[in-house]
């Protein structure tokens, strides 16, 4: 099976073609440098993302506080994480790094605040 990707290792944005045999990478082509190969392999075997969003705050100077997954999570879990944040409301004060949800959506990763709200 062949998977087509755009490399994001640099602005060149090479069109990558990753040849797969089951879940094993056979070859990466279309890259102009070694970083493209590394990106291509990771992106098809274990793509991950940091998810950033907001949750409501009560009794604070702002009505919203920005949050993120403390580490990257599997790409396929993005919408599970987003759903878990729906209707969450936390009381002020909030400090950067405070855990908003522990082990969000079974990823083993915490949702933490990224802004101070007094």
């Amino acid at each position, binding site marked *: 099976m062949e998977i087509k*990707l755009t490399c994001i290792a640099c602005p*060149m944005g090479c069109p990558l073609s990753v040849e797969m045999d089951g879940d094993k990478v056979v070859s990466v082509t279309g890259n102009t440098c070694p970083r493209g190969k590394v990106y291509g392999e990771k992106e098809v075997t274990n793509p991950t993302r940091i998810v950033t969003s907001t949750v409501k705050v009560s009794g604070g100077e*702002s*009505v919203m506080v920005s949050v993120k997954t403390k580490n990257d999570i599997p790409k396929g879990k993005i919408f599970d994480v987003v759903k878990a944040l729906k209707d969450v409301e936390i009381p002020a004060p909030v400090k*950067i790094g405070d855990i908003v949800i522990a082990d969000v959506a079974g990823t083993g990763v915490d949702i933490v605040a990224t*802004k101070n709200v007094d």
Partner: protein
Amino acid sequence: MKAYDIVIIGGGPAGLAAAAAAKRSGIDSILILERDRELGGILNQCIHNGFGLHTFKEELTGPEYASRFIDQVEELGIEYKLNTMVMDISPNKVVTAMNREEGLYEIQAKAIVLAMGCRERSRGALNIPGYRPAGIYSAGTAQRLVNMEGFMPGRTCVILGSGDIGLIMARRMTFEGAKVKVVAELMPYSGGLKRNIVQCLDDYGIPLKLSHTVVDIKGKERLEGITLAQVDNKGKPIPGTEEFYECDTLLLSVGLIPENELSNGMGVAMNPITSGPIVNESLETNIEGVFACGNVLHVHDLVDFVSEEAAAAGRNAAAYVKDGAAANVKEVITLKGVDGVRYTVPSTINVDRMADQLIVRFRVGGVYKNCYVSTYFDDERVLRRKRPVVAPGEMEEVKLSKEQLLKYPDLKTITIKIEEA
């Protein structure tokens, strides 16, 4: 009248970095004036990650990046005023500001750092025909509504312009349950960073239509839909390519304009290409003791470079306060961008006043593959760097060393250009 050594106009990333650097250079009397209710500027609404890779070697969100600099300003005990709008700056550096506590009041500054940032190009600048219904927002306005005020601008959305804020908002609106149908870009290439196209559009199956624009807006009270058409190489819509998209929201991400009303008011000379002040190696404008940095000077892609540039402006403003204007200014070297290089910041260099190393930043006018970025000292090519690709969406730089420039005492012009490999 209150007096300060350095007054900094704007408490965003540029103003904060300039203030911290000026204080560390030995100036105690500093005031930051900020019109919003908190420091940090536009970073506060940029909740996505990817900030600070160069500065902190980690990926921070916008508010986290801002807080690192806000903490520095607090720890250094730098004075700032929030909810304060600067109305005017006179050529002799009297700042007229206004807020609810003090009303209209004046501040005398010895040096000024302009750090007002930029604002978004609006619908009015685009000549889109049709009615003016509700539901048309600039991408940054929508970003503030969603991320800070907790409002959703709409449910089905089309985005015009592939600037980074538009791309980021495509993902953000998707997370909040909206359907983003398409991102249209007038140019044949995207104005945003490649990684944003992959991580904000490709990840969610949102199509990007290059060489397309909005030719009609439907809806009288509320937006009901828009018509996209393909454009030819002159940017003119091609008849027969029109396609209707039903949507209640149109976000515009069609460019940023440095916010220079105050600079113009005090007589700062402007560069028509950047829409920002013309500055020398010290980031000083044509008015002695008035410095500019960040997006008010020229629009950046990465906040890291804003902080770096602003810190230089802060140090230079501090040096000006301590040493006064440079006496016996030697003849300056003119910097020029040609053959694909649209502009350079700075525009002139006085070698005596430059730091050991000077970063010249510029943008190119098109996409060039396998090219050289070449630097000429008068007619002699002294630097040449091979680049696999350069594009208008990513700012470029050339580093000049003082040591090297001192070897060319009669140098008049430095030219930066793109050459074919």
